């Protein structure tokens, strides 16, 4: 399963997905969100929606000096928090800025492709898609 941006043009910038992502931890706020919604150079131009693309050979894991980011079969990474030293190299390595940061814990927050956010997008911007042979992901 992979989280994907179906149609960013429909995004209204409500950030319901970001709050949903952070709410998985049970608390409110935005500290744990691993989705980014930002204007594309001013609100009138629409929004850019950033989600982890769960790369098959993830650059974030390649640069991790402590092995805290473990590539998963089929793409994406898993964070072993106890191994993470908060160096931030993974964040620098992700050129779409999909490695987010929890300032309170000073560690990355990594999308686990759970799709919880999808149910909180009222405008069908996000989708969780099944991996099928021959189907490409944007």
């Amino acid at each position: 399963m992979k989280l994907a941006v179906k149609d960013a043009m429909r995004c209204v910038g409500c950030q319901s997905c970001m709050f949903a992502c952070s709410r998985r931890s049970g608390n409110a706020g935005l500290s744990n969100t691993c989705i980014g919604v930002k204007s594309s150079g001013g609100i009138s131009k629409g929004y850019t929606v950033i989600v982890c693309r769960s790369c098959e050979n993830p650059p974030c894991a390649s640069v991790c000096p402590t092995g805290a980011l473990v590539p998963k079969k089929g793409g994406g990474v898993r964070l072993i928090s106890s191994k993470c030293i908060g160096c931030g190299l993974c964040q620098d390595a992700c050129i779409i800025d999909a490695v987010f940061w929890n300032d309170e814990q000073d560690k990355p927050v990594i999308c686990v492709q759970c799709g919880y956010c999808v149910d909180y997008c009222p405008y069908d911007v996000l989708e969780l898609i099944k991996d099928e042979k021959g189907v490409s992901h944007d």
Partner: protein
Amino acid sequence: MIENDTLSKVLYIDLTKKRYFVKDRKDLFEKYLGGTGVATQLLLEECPEGIDAFDADSPIIFAVGPLSGVFPLASKTCAMFKSPHTGDLGESHAGGRSAIAIRMAGYGAIVIKGKSELPIYLSISKGKVLFKNATTLWGMKDGSVAARVMRQNEDGEGLRAIFRIGQAGENMVTFANVTTETYRHFGRLGLGAIFGSKMLKGIVVSGKQMIEVTNKKEYRALYDQIYNAATESPVMQKYHDVGTAINIKSLNSVNALPVKNLQRSSTEDIKSVTGEEIAKHHLARRVACAHCPVACIHLAYLREPYDDDPYFYKTTPVCYDFELIYSLGTMVGITEPKALLKLIDIVERVGVDAISMGVVLSWITEMFEKNRIKEDDLNGLSIQWGDVDTYIELVKNITKPSTEFLKACSKGVSFASSVYGGKEFAMQFGKNEMPGYHTGPAGYLGFLLGARHSHLDNGGYSVDQKELVKVDLSPEQVVDKLLDEEAIRQILSSIAVCFFARGIYDLKLVSEAIKLLGFSLDEKKLMDIGKQIHLNKYKFKMREGFSFDKLDIPERIYETKDPTGKITKEFIHNGLNYAKNLIN
């Protein structure tokens, strides 16, 4: 409240000394929740009695609520200040990302005092306040350019709110606004002029913190209940689809829509500026405030050809809603959508309250029509109803006034008519220009009694439309309803929930929601707090010279047809006398 919640942290900023400190004010938040309740107390504390609104010691206060960043639709920031427009309570609310950004930055309120010797903007994030030189941004004719520069120079993409003023604020036009996220405004009562008087061009604030709740399971369940109501409930439908502009057609059809300075209350030319028609031909995009799935902000695209090149167009996004179609449309005789959008655009650029500007323009037009002012008063301009190009010039002239008459107009119609006459058709209530509801006596009593003289204080127009058109109510009964509603709305604006969501957030739900943030208050206690906040606001108003006996009521409201046929001097005066005894 929960012990570790940063809601009770108040950030105090001194623009004169360029320093800041944080104080824990649990005392205020536990008693008044946040938002308007806390901001009113901070205003009473921080604003010296009788001070000039433009004095360095005159404070700017922003406050958010416990539910901001926790539940959907709690996305409003309450701004409180001494109004340079009315001389008493200044209060306006804005959404955008403002409330979420302030709460996520770790504050429940911000108090700004002092005056900088050079233009500055504030950058607030990660527990720090930076004072940035804004000299190069001062005097720009389009406020959105200054916002773009701040955006390019600051961190926090997607998480930040950017407040800023335009030329009107810099020039201290008393109804200048503060814009946030390009299309949301602390619109009414002149906050922009206070920014200008302090040489404060703008504020960038951002953050991304966690907020603890008392019960995670109950939190998720209540969240889903509110979220589902916000996205599926019919009470949110009108804001979601056509938007508030849907009211244009219906109010026009029942003679409740002010036309040409309320000389009339309906026009046959309405067809192309109804909400439905503008959406059909001009709506380009809908956007939302942070943490609100409703997306009620409607943006139209205005496409204008350049005169000197046939294949060159200027395409401008313009935000519209009911109030703008009224104030910069029907009120000034403009019923052609492109002309309307052009006028809205210039009002956005200079940064003034669109309602007040529309009423000022319509009053000027009638003064000119009646030969009570001359072209010289208007810096050589000659104005008539619907003349959009001249209105655009007038907006610029009021923002940078060059004649004594235009200077008076930059202080609103109450002040201008006190100097030049025309009070009988100067459409203000409590010195605040009227919104677009000529619905009946409850609407007008609502404007007069409301602590900030806004239709949103108590929704009097709703009492007209739902009750007075069908049944008779005494002025006393109407006032009782208005005061009860205003008390309830004090709670909504203290938890910083948008009034559009008042159909979802009843006091029972409020009580359940704030319980998860550690507040144990039942509906009865909430209502008592609401009434107390309302009285606290009146305490400030009275202290600063407000009096029910000094209210000017324009004769025009008694002359123009309305849906109830019940707007009489007797009704209004009896209502006011009754309210005066309850509030004083």
